[in-house]
């Protein structure tokens, strides 16, 4: 295990540089958790969100929705004008806009599919909450329509209103708190992509650059160690390093979010980040073959980890990025990792159907790992024959 041991000594010597990234992650993680904590944990009725409500349907059902929303939000009076609304959203004058279309009540009572248009600040806690309230309203109405034939618009609304008053509130608040917490965990894990990637590129490239140095390589080739043993030790070493780096990086989440990390959702965050680590490890291995010197390593670590984070929605939410940027971002595993985190964070219920896209994304992230190794093998083969 000489090679394995030497590998960790090399990492050890480069620890100061690596620690910077771990430390910066810690600082940001702590800051973000403090910033985000108050509104989510406070009593919900005190923090009413501003919304805009437009109804083009003259019906009791529409009025009912308006009044049940007004109980839990501040309705802001602004004209239904595209530009004005966009400004209002941007400056957070409103966080949620509801538009009830004409014929809403009529369609609903005929059993047709109805759509309430909504625009929201992406990823906000209130979005999830209000989506829930509206869905509940419509679903309750649908339930009455299908079970009690011949109800008038007014009767239906009365039933729905009474129903919702009784049970909705408490249950929803619990859900909202849960979602807002997992949203916070989601941000935390998203941001981890940057530091984890940088740490892996730095470590793996530094080590591989040493072992690939021509003189040392030749010297190692003179000794009676088989290439198989050499490679096994290097792979094992890098893998251990990646798992170790991952363990260190998830530590803060265990301290900060505690038992949440041991719920099914928490586990998915952890598994997702582990899969991402392995993928980043393989990409780092490829980078280590391509870079020439120590200077290039830290440049690569910065550019690749930061760049991929930026275009994949780590620093700026994916919803706010242009479609071209996202399309480029989708060529990095970070994009799919972040996407998964966002899905996990937004889930109100953990079902197979909810989780399938996450598993699918993990498969893509894993695909990046396989592809990088394949390219790395081709490149090394070409280098050897050149």
């Amino acid at each position, binding site marked *: 295990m*000489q090679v394995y*041991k*030497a590998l960790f*000594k*090399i990492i*050890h*010597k*480069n620890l100061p540089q690596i620690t910077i990234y771990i430390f910066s992650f810690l600082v940001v993680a702590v800051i973000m958790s403090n910033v985000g904590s108050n509104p989510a944990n406070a009593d919900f009725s005190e923090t009413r969100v501003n919304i805009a409500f437009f109804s083009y349907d003259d019906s009791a059902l529409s009025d009912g929705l308006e009044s049940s929303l007004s109980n839990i939000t501040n309705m802001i009076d602004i004209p239904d004008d595209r530009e004005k609304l966009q400004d209002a959203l941007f400056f957070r004058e409103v966080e949620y806009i509801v538009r009830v279309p004409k014929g809403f009540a009529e369609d609903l009572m005929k059993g047709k599919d109805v759509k309430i248009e909504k625009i929201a600040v992406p990823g906000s806690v209130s979005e999830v909450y209000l989506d829930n309230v509206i869905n509940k309203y419509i679903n309750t109405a649908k339930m009455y329509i299908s079970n009690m034939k011949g109800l008038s618009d007014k009767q239906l609304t009365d039933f729905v209103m009474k129903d919702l008053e009784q049970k909705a509130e408490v249950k929803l608040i619990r859900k909202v708190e849960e979602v807002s917490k997992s949203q916070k965990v989601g941000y935390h894990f998203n941001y981890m992509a940057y530091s984890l990637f940088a740490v892996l590129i730095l470590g793996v490239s530094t080590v591989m650059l*040493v072992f690939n140095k021509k*003189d*040392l390589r*030749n*010297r*190692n*080739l*003179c*000794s*009676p*160690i*088989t290439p198989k043993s050499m490679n096994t030790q290097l792979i094992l070493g890098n893998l251990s390093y990646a798992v170790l780096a991952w363990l260190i990086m998830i530590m803060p989440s265990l301290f900060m979010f505690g038992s949440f990390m041991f719920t099914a959702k928490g586990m998915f965050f952890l598994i997702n980040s582990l899969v991402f680590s392995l993928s980043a490890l393989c990409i780092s291995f490829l980078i280590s073959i391509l870079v020439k010197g120590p200077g290039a390593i830290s440049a690569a670590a910065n550019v690749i980890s930061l760049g991929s984070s930026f275009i994949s929605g780590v620093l700026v939410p994916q919803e706010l990025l242009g479609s071209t940027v996202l399309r480029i971002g989708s060529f990095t595993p970070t994009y799919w990792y972040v996407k998964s985190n966002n899905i996990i964070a937004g889930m109100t219920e953990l079902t197979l159907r909810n989780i399938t896209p996450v598993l699918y994304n993990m498969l893509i992230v894993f695909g990046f790992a396989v592809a990088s190794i394949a390219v790395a093998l081709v490149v090394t083969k070409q280098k050897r024959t050149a």
Partner: protein
Amino acid sequence: MIIKVNNLVKRYDDLIALDHFNLEVKEGEIFGLLGPNGSGKTTAINCILSLLKYDKGTIEVYGRPMAPDAYDIKRNIGIIMQNVAVFDELTVYENIDYFCGMYIKDKKKRRELVEEAIEFVELDSFRKFLPKKLSGGLLRRLNIACGIAHKPKLIILDEPTVAVDPQSRRKILEGIRKLNDDGATIVYTSHYMEEVEEICTRIAIMDKGKVIALGTKDELKGMINSGEKITVEILEHNPDILEGVRSLPNIVSAEFNDNMLVAKSRRGKNNLSALLEYLRSSQINVGRIYSEPPTLNDVFLEITGKELRDHA
């Protein structure tokens, strides 16, 4: 025969680095491979170690064909590369332990061997140092310790004294002798003829990828026509004596260098006494007298027509 190389040909594109190179190294000798920079010494060593593919020829070590996967052969070779090959991130001790550990698995035995190697190259007070903190000479000694810690029976040193201070050079040469005394067969490459003359029992002189002369240093010197170089201090300067000296049998050339008469002789007996006899009979007072036997440089010069000396 420890090493047997037969008609080795190695090309780098148009350049023929080894041109039907032959070599036989016997057990227990210090074999010198002497040649100017670029003559193909390192290429030959790297081929012998299976680090390079070659175009033609055969290489046997310990009587068996050498190959990249001949691990039992590799286990018994100690290699000191021309370029220092150590880990910058590992200390002196850790470096020696790493390379020794490639050969010796037993931890206790390895610790002893590493300690011995440290003592051997006298790096005891530097054991915790990183290679970057070592001077050129100490670094070379670390490189050697890494190569010999596992006590190999065959030790190959490729220019181990390049860019080394005289003190370290002395130590390195003494060390090589000692390794040989302890039973190791040594292959030593250098472009410094003085070193090779000093320690090697047999010498192959290389030029342009070929061995151009082979033998002990005396055998090599016996191969050429030049004899000793005689230098005599002439107390009264008299240009006429040059003619007389030049006409002596066996004297090839005679020059004045200030008041020193420098005469080069052909191989033969009594050259010095004949010259002195002539000077005395011409009643010329002489001061100091030196006689230098031919050097390997003379051998190289006579065979190739160029100097071996490193003018850099």
